[in-house]
């Protein structure tokens, strides 16, 4: 291996798959070989079996659907608020000076710590779940968008000025289009984090969703189900990331690829 030397696409895919194979092999060896107690860790086979039962007998698909809706709902709400605020913050220094200290502080407030408060305010319904994700995402998006917009190349702005662009033109036709691909990439990143918030929200005071299934399974010592739930989250995350990436590449052909 040489530093930074490229590898073929085939080798890349093969190596990527190899890790999953090894992972399952070690897991299978530890559980099926009897080195780890079944009570604490189900074998891959049990996991698949229990997962199948969940999907066919216990309506787990509905839980998956509900969780996806919560993630997307909370995330879209956060993006609708945060992207415009972030753009204004990045573009106008007084707005930045006004909001940045508070948002930098709010960003470190863990969304999960708000759950008890949100239950008091919004009850146990959907609104509370959406709010957890909203709080977890909105401050992150604002800051990332603001940084992206503020980092737009100065010389592009100067070029636009010498072409007669005024304040509105600089904002609408230079700052926003120039930062759009990076904003989309930030959103993709935050969507990934939103998944962790939704599960936490569902672990507490919920009667549906993937997180609810996981906490139920704990009571039943059904580790196979728990692991299946976790893997489902991972797979959905992978798919959404893939779709998001694809959409970005189609929306911004001038920037990617």
């Amino acid at each position, binding site marked *: 291996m040489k530093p930074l030397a490229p590898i073929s696409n085939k080798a890349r895919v093969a190596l990527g798959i190899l890790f999953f194979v090894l992972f399952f092999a070690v897991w299978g060896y530890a559980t099926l070989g009897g080195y780890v107690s079944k009570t604490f860790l189900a074998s891959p086979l049990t996991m698949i079996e229990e997962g199948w039962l969940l999907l066919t007998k216990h309506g787990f698909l509905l839980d998956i659907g509900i969780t996806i809706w919560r993630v997307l709902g909370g995330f879209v709400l956060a993006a609708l608020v945060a992207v415009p605020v972030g753009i204004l913050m990045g573009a106008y220094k007084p707005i930045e000076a006004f909001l940045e200290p508070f948002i930098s502080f709010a960003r470190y407030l863990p969304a999960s710590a708000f759950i008890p408060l949100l239950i008091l305010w919004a009850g146990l319904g959907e609104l509370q779940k959406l709010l957890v994700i909203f709080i977890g995402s909105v401050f992150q998006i604002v800051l990332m968008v603001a940084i992206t917009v503020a980092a737009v190349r100065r010389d592009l702005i*100067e*070029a*636009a*000025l*010498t*072409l*007669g662009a005024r304040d509105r033109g600089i904002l609408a036709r230079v700052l926003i289009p*120039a930062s759009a691909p990076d904003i989309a990439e930030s959103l993709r990143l935050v969507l990934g984090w939103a998944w962790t918030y939704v599960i936490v929200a569902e672990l507490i005071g919920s009667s549906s969703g993937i997180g609810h299934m996981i906490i139920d399974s704990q009571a039943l010592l059904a580790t196979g189900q728990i692991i299946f739930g976790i893997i489902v989250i991972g797979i959905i995350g992978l798919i959404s990331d893939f779709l998001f990436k694809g959409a970005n590449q189609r929306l911004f*052909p*001038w920037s990617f690829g």
Partner: protein
Amino acid sequence: MRRGLPTRALEPIDLKIADNDFVTIIGPSGCGKSTLLRLVAGLDQPTTGRILLNGKPVSAPGPDRGMVFQSYTLFPWLSVADNIAFGLREKGVPARERAKIVDEWLANVGLADFAQHYPKQLSGGMQQRTAIARALANDPAILLLDEPFGALDNQTRALMQELLLGIWERERKTVLFVTHDIEEAIFLASRVLVMTARPGRIKADVIIDLPHPRHYTIKTSSVFSALKARLTEEIRAEAIVAATALSPSS
């Protein structure tokens, strides 16, 4: 200018540029020649003194002073055609007329076949051709160029000089062109200004009386060589000053 004393980039300069002149400015690096251009563009403000364009003071950037930068400043999200149309759009020129002007300039810089390409698909020379077209499509009173061919290889650079000169011979725009390449300065100019090491002052003002249209073969003529020898001497003394000065160059 944080900490320490602000750097004095330019000495007071009293300079008049006539209409339709092609003025090139050469000087050692850090002599403030780019600063001078940025002052005219309105991107920087002078601490003292004024800049007048057709008798009116310059206070901010505007479309009457087109600028081409050394760095590639095409808008990466716009096609070549949309880049050229940018200033016209800001001005509110109707779409039809815009398209007509854009087509003209695409042809003028030989990029008609690349109208729908994105900047990243173009070579450096093509990007700078687009940048020149973008600035001129706006029909500015003066065109400012800050080492626009500085990042190009020698062959491309020579072709770009001929292209720009050809455009100037047709359009007779007033041009202010900063470079550190003596040959480029002479070949393009009707007047060459030599600046001193920082803080920059104008040291020599040389009229270039070579005939138009100029052909690239003129670069090997004896008149050209004599001018080159003279300007080389002027610049060399300043380069030595600049190289031995303690202050870091900008």
